[in-house]
C-alpha cells in the first residue's frame, strides 16, 4: 500500500466522484464501466483504493454534495468494496459490491435508453468474479462457499430487469452467459433450464438482435448441455454455430468448442483430420479417431482408459464409449472387404467364427454367442444390412450397401 498524503487522497476521491457523475450525466457508458471494474486491477482504481484507505471518511464527502449523494446507494458500498478488495478481504469486498450493484440496478431501471449496458456488463462480470474469489477465501477458512450461489440469485434479478420490451433487452444474453458460467462452475447445471426457456420462448427476445459475442458464448454452453443429454443433432448445430462465428484469432475459445464438438461429430460419423487435433492440442482424441478408422476395438478401449479421468471430468466419456458400435461396424466391414478380394462370390456370407478370431487378435475375448448378439444389434440399428443365421453361425450381408454410412445422423437408439 503506497503512501498517500491526505491532500492527495482527497483529490483522488473527488476526481473519481466527478468522473462518475459526469459519466452518468452525459450518458457515457464507456467511461462509466472503467470506473466499476474492480478486478481489472487498473492503476487508477488501485490508487483510488489506496486513497480511500488513507482518507477513511469518504462517506462524509459523498453525503456533503448533492451531486454525489444522489448516487450514495451505489458509491458508498462501492468504496467499501474497493477498500476491502485492496486489502485482500474478498468476502467483504463481494458483499459490499453486491450492495453497490443493487443500487446500480435501481438507478439503471430508471435510465431511459440502453446507454449504460456496457457498465451493466461490467457489474455482472464483477459480481461473478468477485463471488468466485470470495468463495475461495471462505473455503480456505473452512466455511461453506456460498457467495457464488448468491451471485447467481442476484444475476437472475438482473436478468429480470432486462427482460422487458425496451432497448435494454439485448443485454439479457450477456447476463445469461454469466449465469451459465456460474452454474457450470457450481455443478448446478440443471438451473440453466429456466433461463434458457426465457431466452428461447419469450416473445420479447429475438435471438438475432443479440450481440455476436454473446450468441457464440450462449451456443457454446447450450451446445455443451446438449452433449450432456446426448442430443447430437442439436449439439452439432449449436457448437458448429459457435465455431463458425467465433473470433478466428481466439485459439483458446476454438479449442474449447472443439473439445465438445469432436465427440459429437464422431457420433454422427464425421472424423476430424489429425492436423486439427494437433493444432488445437486435442490429441486425447487421436487414438479414438484412429480406432474408428481402423475398426480397432482394442485401441478405442485403451484410449478411453488412458484419458478416462479427463473424459469423465469434461463429461464426454459416455459419448465416446458409445462409439464402440461404429468400431465394430468398421471391423466387420474390413473383414468383408478382405473376403471379397479372395472370393467375391462368397463374400456376403461372413462366418461369425472369423469375427471371433479377429477380436481374439485384438486381445478381446468374446464367444460366438456374444458376437451374434453384437451382429444382431448392428443389424437392428441399421449399421449392417442383412440377417444372421443362428444354426449356421453366419451373418448374411445384403448385396447392396451392407454397411450404411451414418450420413450425419447418430446411430439409432
Amino acid at each position, binding site marked *: 500500500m503506497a503512501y498517500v498524503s491526505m491532500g492527495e487522497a482527497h483529490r483522488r476521491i473527488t476526481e473519481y466522484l466527478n468522473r462518475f457523475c459526469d459519466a452518468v450525466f452525459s450518458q457515457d457508458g464507456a467511461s462509466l464501466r472503467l470506473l466499476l471494474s474492480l478486478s481489472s486491477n487498473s492503476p487508477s482504481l488501485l490508487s483510488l483504493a489506496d486513497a480511500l484507505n488513507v482518507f477513511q471518511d469518504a462517506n462524509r464527502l459523498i453525503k456533503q454534495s448533492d451531486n454525489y449523494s444522489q448516487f450514495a446507494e451505489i458509491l458508498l458500498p462501492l468504496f467499501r468494496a474497493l477498500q476491502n478488495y485492496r486489502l485482500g478481504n474478498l468476502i467483504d469486498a463481494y458483499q459490499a459490491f453486491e450492495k453497490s450493484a443493487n443500487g446500480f440496478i435501481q438507478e439503471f431501471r430508471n435510465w431511459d435508453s440502453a446507454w449504460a449496458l456496457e457498465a451493466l456488463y461490467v457489474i455482472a462480470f464483477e459480481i461473478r468474479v468477485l463471488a468466485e474469489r470470495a468463495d475461495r477465501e471462505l473455503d480456505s*477458512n473452512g*466455511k461453506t462457499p456460498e457467495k457464488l450461489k448468491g451471485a447467481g440469485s442476484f444475476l437472475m434479478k438482473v436478468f429480470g430487469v432486462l427482460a422487458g420490451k425496451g432497448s435494454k433487452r439485448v443485454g439479457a444474453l450477456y447476463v445469461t452467459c454469466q449465469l451459465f458460467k456460474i452454474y457450470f462452475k457450481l455443478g448446478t447445471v440443471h438451473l440453466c433450464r429456466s433461463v434458457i426457456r426465457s431466452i428461447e420462448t419469450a416473445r420479447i427476445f429475438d435471438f438475432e438482435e443479440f450481440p455476436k459475442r454473446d450468441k457464440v458464448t450462449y451456443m457454446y454452453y447450450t451446445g455443451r448441455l446438449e452433449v450432456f443429454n446426448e442430443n447430437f443433432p442439436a449439439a452439432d448445430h449449436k457448437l458448429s454455430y459457435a465455431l463458425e462465428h467465433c473470433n478466428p484469432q481466439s485459439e483458446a475459445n476454438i479449442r474449447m468448442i472443439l473439445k465438445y464438438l469432436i465427440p459429437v461429430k464422431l457420433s454422427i460419423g464425421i472424423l476430424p483430420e489429425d492436423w486439427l487435433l494437433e493444432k488445437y492440442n486435442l490429441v486425447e482424441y487421436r487414438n479414438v479417431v484412429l480406432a474408428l478408422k481402423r475398426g480397432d476395438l482394442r485401441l478405442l478401449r485403451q484410449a478411453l482408459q488412458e484419458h478416462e479421468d479427463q473424459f469423465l471430468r469434461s463429461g464426454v466419456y*459416455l459419448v465416446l*464409449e458409445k462409439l464402440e458400435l461404429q468400431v465394430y461396424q468398421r471391423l466387420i466391414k474390413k473383414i468383408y472387404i478382405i473376403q471379397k478380394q479372395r472370393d467375391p462370390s462368397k463374400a456376403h456370407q461372413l462366418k461369425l467364427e472369423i469375427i471371433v478370431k479377429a477380436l481374439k487378435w485384438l486381445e478381446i475375448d468374446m464367444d460366438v454367442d*456374444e458376437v451374434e448378439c453384437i451382429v444382431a444389434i448392428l443389424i437392428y440399428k441399421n449399421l449392417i444390412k442383412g440377417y*444372421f443365421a*443362428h444354426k449356421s453361425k453366419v451373418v448374411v450381408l445384403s448385396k447392396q450397401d451392407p454397411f450404411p454410412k451414418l450420413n450425419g445422423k447418430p446411430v439409432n437408439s
Partner: protein
Amino acid sequence: MEERRSNRFQRPNSRSSSSSSSSTSSWQSTTSPSNKFFPNPHTSSKSTINSGDSRTRRRRFSQQQQQQQEEDGNGTSDPPAIIGTCRLMCPEGERTQRERLRDLAVFERVNGNSTLSSPSLAVKKFCRTITTKQVQPSDVRPLPVLEDTLNYLLSLFKSTEHPFEVVHDFIFDRTRSIRQDITMQNIVNDKALHMYEEMVKFHVISHHKLRSCTSPNTSSVHYLNMEQLTKTLTTLFNLYEANRNSNSTYKNEAEFHSFYVLLHLGSNSQPMGESLSVWFRRVPSPIINSKEMCFSRRILRCFRLGNYKRFLSITESEASYLQYCIIEPYVNEVRALALSCINNCGYKLHPYPLAPVHNIDDEESFCKACGLSICADEEGNKFLPTKQTTFCCPKGGFQCYGFLGLERFET
C-alpha cells in the same frame, strides 16, 4: 495439566497484537484491516481450519443442511440446531392424541385395538408442515433413540403378517420422520451416515418387492418410494463427503454410488434433472475405480450399446442383491430388446432356440407377452420363429415376468 492450562490463558493477552500463531484462537477476526498484513493465524495452524479436516467438513455440511432447511422452509438462520430429549420412539403427546383420533397404524395397536398403543409400539409420524421454529425439544428424538427406532422398524420389514404394501407404507413414513429428526438436530456424523445407508437399503428392497404388488395405487407408491430413494441417496453422498478422513472411502460407499448409476440406466433418453455425464464429473477417483462402480459402468455400457447378451450374463453372475433390485426393471426391457433383435434380424428358416441364450424358465410366457409365438420340435425343445410381425412391448410394463437369477439370492 492445570499449570499448562493456566499458562494458556495468559498467552492471548500478551500476544493480542502479535503476528505469531496461537493455535487455540479460533474467534479472532480475520477481516479487520489491521490483521491483514500479518500472517493469518488460521493459516498457520493446521489443526482446526484446514479445509481437508473432517471436523470442518462436517461443520460445513451441517451449514449446508441448515441452508437447505431454510430453503425448504424448515429452518431459521439464527437458532442453533435443536437438541432432542424425547426418550421414546414416539413423543407421549403425539401418541395419546393419535389414540384419541384412532390414527394408529396396525403395527402400533395393542392387540389390534385401534384406540390403544404403547411406548414400545408407537412410532413418531412424519409431519410435513413442521418447521424447526415450532418444534419442542421434547418432541425430537436424540440419536441413540433414533438408532433404536430404526432398528425396530427394520425388524418389521420381514413381517409376513400383513400385505407388503402395509409394511412398506409404515416403514416408509416412520423412517421419513427419523430423517426429519436427524435434519432438525443437524446430526451429520458417521452414525447418521450408517442410518442413511440402512434407509437407502430399505427403499431399494421395497423398489423390488413393490413390483409384485398388484393393488391399484402401487404405481404411485412405487413412484414416491423412488423419490425418497433418490433424496436419501443424495443426502448419503453428502454425508460421505462431510465425514471423509484423508482420502479414504467408506466400506459401502462404492456400492451406494453404483446404485446411482444403475438407477439412471435408461434416463439419458429423458433427462430429468442431472444427466449421468454431469454426475460423473464429481465422483472421486477411488470410487470410480472401485469394483462396484466398474460393475455398474459395465452394465451401463452394455445397456447403452444394446449388448443384451453381456448385460444379462453379467447381471446374473455379478450383481449383488441390492444392485439386482435396481437393475431388475431393466432386465425385462433388455430381454424384450433381445427378442426384438432376434425376431427382426434372424434368418426366417432358422427358428431361434430359446433355452441356451436366455436361461430363464418363463421365457415362453415372456415371448407371448411380447406378442410372439413359440413353436416346438419333436423332442419338445422350444423355438422362436423369426420375422414375426406381431412383436410389441408388453402393455402393462414388465412387472409380472420371472426374475432372472434371483434363485442365487434365496438362502
